[in-house]
Structures are given as C-alpha cells and as structure tokens.
C-alpha cells in the first residue's frame, strides 16, 4: 500500500489482488457540475485491483478502478472509471 500526500491526493492508494481481473458491474453516477442535478450511470468492465481509500472516520470510503469497459454510457469517452465499492457487483460470484 502506498500513501499519497498533499491536498491533491487526499487518499491512500492500495491494491487488492483478489479483485484483479474480476468482471464487475457498477451502478454508478455523480453530481452534475454546479447544478442541483445528478445522473445515474451503468458500467461493466474488469477490475484492475487498484483502489483508493478516502478517510471519513470509521471504515474507509473505498474506490476501485474498473477498466476494459464493455458497457458504459453512450457519451462516456474514457476507458476506465473509479467506482465506489458499494456500487460494484462482482459478476462471477
């Protein structure tokens, strides 16, 4: 596990080997910039095992990197997305 420091990286990075290469769905979404709106987004891809933990006291707020996306919103241009742990469902369970 590596620790990122500074205001631009207020998280701890890590790697979960058990998740590497696992197929997963992400029921994701995010707020829309400077509006009161948000949008739901759905992704399917492969977990790299990389994660980021944000601290809010108690258990960490963990985010996994979902890559090699085979399903993503039509307008989503990236090849990977960070998904909050609870938004993920492993497909091979």
């Amino acid at each position, binding site marked *: 596990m590596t620790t990122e420091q500074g205001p631009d990286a207020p998280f701890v990075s890590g790697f979960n080997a058990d998740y590497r290469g696992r197929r997963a769905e992400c029921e994701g979404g*995010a707020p829309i910039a400077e509006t009161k709106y948000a949008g739901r987004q759905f992704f399917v891809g492969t977990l790299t095992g990389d994660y980021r933990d944000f601290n809010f006291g108690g*258990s960490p707020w963990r985010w996994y990197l979902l890559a090699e996306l085979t399903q993503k919103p039509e307008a989503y241009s990236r090849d990977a997305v960070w998904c*909050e742990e609870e938004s993920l469902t492993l497909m091979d369970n």
Partner: protein
Amino acid sequence: MSDPLHTLLCEKLGIEYPIVAFTHCKDVAVAVINAGGFAVLGEAMHPPEHIRADIRWIRERIGDKKFGIDLVLPASVEEERTVEELMAMIPKESRDFEQQIKAKYDVPDPKEAPDLYTWGGLDQARALAQLEVVFEENVPVFASGLGSPKFLLERAHAQGMMVWGLVGTPRQAQKQIDAGVDCIIAQGFDAAGHTGQIGTLSIVPQVVDLAEQRGIPVLAAGGITTGRHLAATLALGASGVWTGSLWLASRESDLNQPLKERLLECEATDTVYSNCISGYTMRTTRCPWHDEWLGPDAPPVLKAPLQMMLSSDYIQGSLDYQRKDLMTEAAGQGIHYVTEMKPARQILSDIVEEALDVFDRFASDDDD
C-alpha cells in the same frame, strides 16, 4: 380504525404526517416541518460554509424538531479535467447547433457567466468537505441522494444521526439495508431528475419486501403529488412519501415566478426523460432546447459534463430574462396535479385530507 397515517416513519422522527419534502428552498423546508411533516434540504451544489449557514438558519426557525440534509455522494467518477480543457473538447458542430437554437428562439445571453465556469470539481474530496459540516452540525438526518452512505454509517450512528439512502433498484436497496441505513427511499422512473428505470408502483413493494424484515421504513418517491398517491404507497407497504415536484410552485418556493407559472401549466407528458440537458438522462420539463435536440438534424448529445456546459448559457439566459417559453426545471410526472400556487402548509393539509378520505372510503365499504 387506528390512524392510517401514523406510520413507523412518524414514530422514528416524531412527526405528525408521513410526508417528506425534498426541497432546495429553506423556506419550504421550514414551512413543511412546522406544519407537521418532515423536510430534507438538498445542498449538493453548495460549498461547506453555505451548508453550515443554512443548517443554522433552519434550526432557528424549527426549534428542536428534526430535519435532514441531502448530498449527492458520487458512486463513480472519472479523472478531473479543468473547465478550459473541457470547453476545448466541445465540437464545433455542437457549438454551432447551440447558436442556431439561441438565434431561432431569440435566447438572451446570461447576465453573468453561469456558475459552471467557476466549477471547482465534484470529486470525493468535495463530498467529504460537505459531509464534514453536516456531521459537525450534528444534523438529525443525512440523506444520500445517489451513492452508498455505508462508509459514514458508523460515525453517524455514534453521534446519533440517522442515515437515509435513495435507491433506484432493489439491488442497491439490499446493499444499503445490509450496510445498516435507517431508511430507504425507493425512487421510481416517474421522478424528477436522475431516476432508475423501474416505475414507482413496481419498485416500492420490492424494496418494502427487502426492508420490512429489518424494521427499516421505506419512503416511496417518484410522481407523488396527491393524497391518493400517499394512500396508495402506504397500501404498498411504504412508511411515507418523499416528494419534490409538489413544492416547486408553492408560495414559499424561491423559484422565479414565470418558472412557477410554467410548472403549474405542465402535464405529465410535458416532462421528458432525456440526456440533452446534461449528458446524463434525467427528467425535466420540456422546452425548446429538448425539441431541437430530439430533432433529426441534431448532432449527437455530448458526454457529461460537456453537454451541461453547452446548455448552461441557454438555461441561465432563460432564467435571467424570465423567459417562461424557454424555461426548464427538473420535475416528476406527478406535476400534472400541481395546479395552484398554495402555501406549503395548505399543500400538506390537502394531501393529508385526501389520503384520509381514501382510507375512510375503504373503511365505509367494509362496513357495508
């Protein structure tokens, strides 16, 4: 017959009626709480110190009654780019189409650059800064409008806060129930803004089936604007209703007057589930912007947040110059029943009265 409106939610919150107003207007929140309902103030777009000021403002006006704050926790994020980088990514074809719309409908330029241009990011760090204030102020109820609140439950419960989660699928509900949330808001496709794909009548009983064994109340959300809706969702097993569009055109609402008038005119079919405003699919009231982007000559809708950057001038211009013919707002299909500009207290009492009439009718049918 015992009071059919006195539900588990009323017990947990110490409220008279199982009606929750989700609103971005502090005055609406205070009016609903002081009339015997409950209110959750949406603060997703505000910086931390603004949220703190709002919390204190509400407390001064409701005494020791409970209230809630809603934030939109992200559930997935892409890497950030600067506003300049994003602006440069908008294709000329899309820019030209935006200009065509503005010329065709004589859309005025905004008086000032939309807030979007001072966007500071929507990543996890911003959400955590907002949350910190909600926890420092020990707000009685925190509601997560999108992502899972699992990571904050331990801290919230340790300081006596309740945590609610809004879901669009039974799978999300099960995860949040297992995590230990105190209330689930089951939001159907009829709702305003971002919604799931399942209709309110279908998702509510599914989530109730999952939650009731754990004694967790479920709120029905999406298209609920009448006492008949309230009675129906209680019959489905819900402990109350989460209402948003219902309050948009209330006397206390801080929306501008022409927009309220537009909302009062809207039918259910005047709401559109489209991605042309922001790049995300969301339900909003139909306006010329929708009509043009749904037309055969429209270019492809851009990804979020580029489409929002494209539409923001149109939206802000329509508000700045009070152009009712151009305005749009997030609203659910229940907007059909929002036809009068009434005080929030009266809206609440009308719904309660109508719901009680429904139950009385069933009770008298039984007696016959």
